[in-house]
């Protein structure tokens, strides 16, 4: 049968966000793929160069609307290194709590978006119902439901309100019961497994060579997490472990990538509980925060989707001279021909959904 190119997107149920996937098919089998990005380019980096350092946290919030705290945290961490700001100990703990709550909300957002890809629309409602619990938690200290603008250069905006620990604990107790329900609904469901197992495989070596990081890489069994390997905030003092899964020796499929995220949610709960135990009292914002900066700095953090890196150059004024964002999803989407080849056209939603696409951060 003759080969032909099929264009999926920019408006397609498979694309979470605006991008085009061109696939070359031989009958039903994919022989080549060509991702096209750039539909959602908002020139965030250039906009950041015209705003003061502290104002840019509003832009980083909008890099990925499903995981805004992690991106703001990455920017703030970079600027703090540039300005040599000492962050109070309590602020570090609050940041870690907010980061892990955001990771939970982000993974639930992904799981909810992944289920309609597989034709399981009820699954979306289950996951998004539980995401509300964490959005309500994140809303309490920050004052907003989606774009928090809570982490600031030198600390956090305000201290956690009274009763936050008890409220979080109530949510965790409920959510742990819900995780058991998910096990019945999805992990042990034969239909879900038939759609996801042995589909979209890539090996650990491929992931390393192509720059696939985060849960997608840990789905191959690679023990690599920047929270452990290049620790920031207080992840060193917290008792937790890197979660890995593998579909077979050294490779991942859609199901192992799903399971890694479920395990990470459980681990995030463990991290937050440990944070509440060890959290000291004290100020939440550094007393002297510089406005101008000179030099250059870069920091990488473990975003919900992989390794996020920011590079900021200061020229002595109160605005960054250059600001570069490295998105984990850009490399993962660019590598998609490698893990799409050989599978059927109908597997594309299952494969592309399983890597947790966020176009906001990819196109910037």
């Amino acid at each position, binding site marked *: 049968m003759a080969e032909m190119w099929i264009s999926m997107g920019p408006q397609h149920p498979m694309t979470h966000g605006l991008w085009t996937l061109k696939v070359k098919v031989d009958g039903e089998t994919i022989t080549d793929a060509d991702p096209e990005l750039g539909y959602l380019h908002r020139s965030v980096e250039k906009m950041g160069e015209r705003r003061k350092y502290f104002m840019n946290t509003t832009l980083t919030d909008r890099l990925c609307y499903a995981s805004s705290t992690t991106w703001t945290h990455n920017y703030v961490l970079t600027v703090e290194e540039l300005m040599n700001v000492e962050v109070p100990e309590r602020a570090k703990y609050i940041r870690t709590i907010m980061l892990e709550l955001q990771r939970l909300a982000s993974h639930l957002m992904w799981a909810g978006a992944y289920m309609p890809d597989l034709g399981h629309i009820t699954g979306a409602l289950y996951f998004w119902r539980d995401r509300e619990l964490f959005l309500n938690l994140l809303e309490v200290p920050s004052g907003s439901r989606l774009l928090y603008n809570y982490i600031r250069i030198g600390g956090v905006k305000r201290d956690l309100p009274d009763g936050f620990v008890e409220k979080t604990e109530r949510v965790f107790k409920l959510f742990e019961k819900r995780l058991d329900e998910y096990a*019945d609904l999805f992990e042990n*469901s034969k239909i879900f497994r038939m759609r996801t197992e042995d589909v979209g495989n890539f090996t650990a070596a491929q992931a390393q060579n192509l720059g696939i990081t985060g849960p997608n890489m840990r789905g191959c069994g690679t023990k690599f997490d920047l929270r452990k390997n290049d620790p920031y905030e207080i992840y060193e003092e917290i008792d937790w472990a890197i979660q890995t899964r593998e579909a077979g020796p050294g490779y991942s499929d859609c199901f192992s990538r799903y399971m890694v995220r479920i395990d990470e949610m459980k681990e995030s709960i463990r991290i937050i509980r440990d944070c509440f135990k060890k959290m000291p009292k004290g100020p939440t914002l550094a007393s002297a925060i510089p406005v101008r900066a000179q030099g250059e700095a870069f920091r990488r953090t473990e975003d919900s989707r992989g390794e996020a890196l920011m590079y900021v150059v200061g020229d002595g004024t109160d605005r960054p001279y250059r600001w570069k964002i490295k998105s984990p999803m850009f490399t993962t989407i660019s590598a998609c021909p490698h893990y799409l080849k050989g599978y059927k056209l109908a597997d594309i939603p299952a494969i592309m959904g399983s890597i947790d696409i966020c176009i906001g951060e990819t196109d910037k």
Partner: protein
Amino acid sequence: MSEKSELGIMDIFVNPMKVTMKQFFKSTFGKPTTVMYPLERRDPPPTYRGMNAVIWDLCIGCGICAEVCPNRCLKMKPVELSDDEQDRAWYGSHLAKRKHKPERPAINFGHCMFCGFCEDYCPTGAMTMTDFYELADTNREGLIYPARSMKVDLEDLPQLPLTNYMMESPVLDVDPCIGCSKCVDNCPTNCIIMDVGPQDKTLKSGKVRNVENPYFDYTICIGCSTCVKVCPADCLHMEPISNSSSSGLTTEESPTEA
């Protein structure tokens, strides 16, 4: 896959059905998950960032909110203050002395992203964010809120201390200063005074006159940089707080040095 063979008939039909039936009874007979929006509303937390409100008597018109607004949707607009408002205003006596009209913030909510910087950086606590979020309008002009529309009057004013959130304060280069005292006229907190400077100027008539220089009281300086903007001789610049309290001439008036 080894795990695949373990799945039996229970896993395929019974267990998922159990969860579904549980949710079915919960959502049919239990409390609804959603809120019937126009009839009932969810309670936002006290920290909620909704429409802005300005506690009129606390506002000193410094313009920091306009400076920190990332979208530039907040502008300072000149307003007429009544005599009563003039009396009640903080630093009201100074406002009357000013050569131009006092200014208050006006917001275009069509551009506002509710980041809350104007609230956080307000040195007097006049700018607040309410829990009002129903701002939809039928035309764009309806989203532009003039200064008076956000006015809020409080019976008991919370007299917060002035805080310099900008982390910078003005520093004087003595040589170019011409002693025009424009900075004094425009300072919203009245933290500048003019006094004898080190330079003398010879007038055309041959008389020698001392050039007065501004002195800053850094305890109530809020770092709004209004003085830097209005200075005609470019003799002022902003420096971090720690530097400015220990640089040259301007320290003499600063009580923080002691």
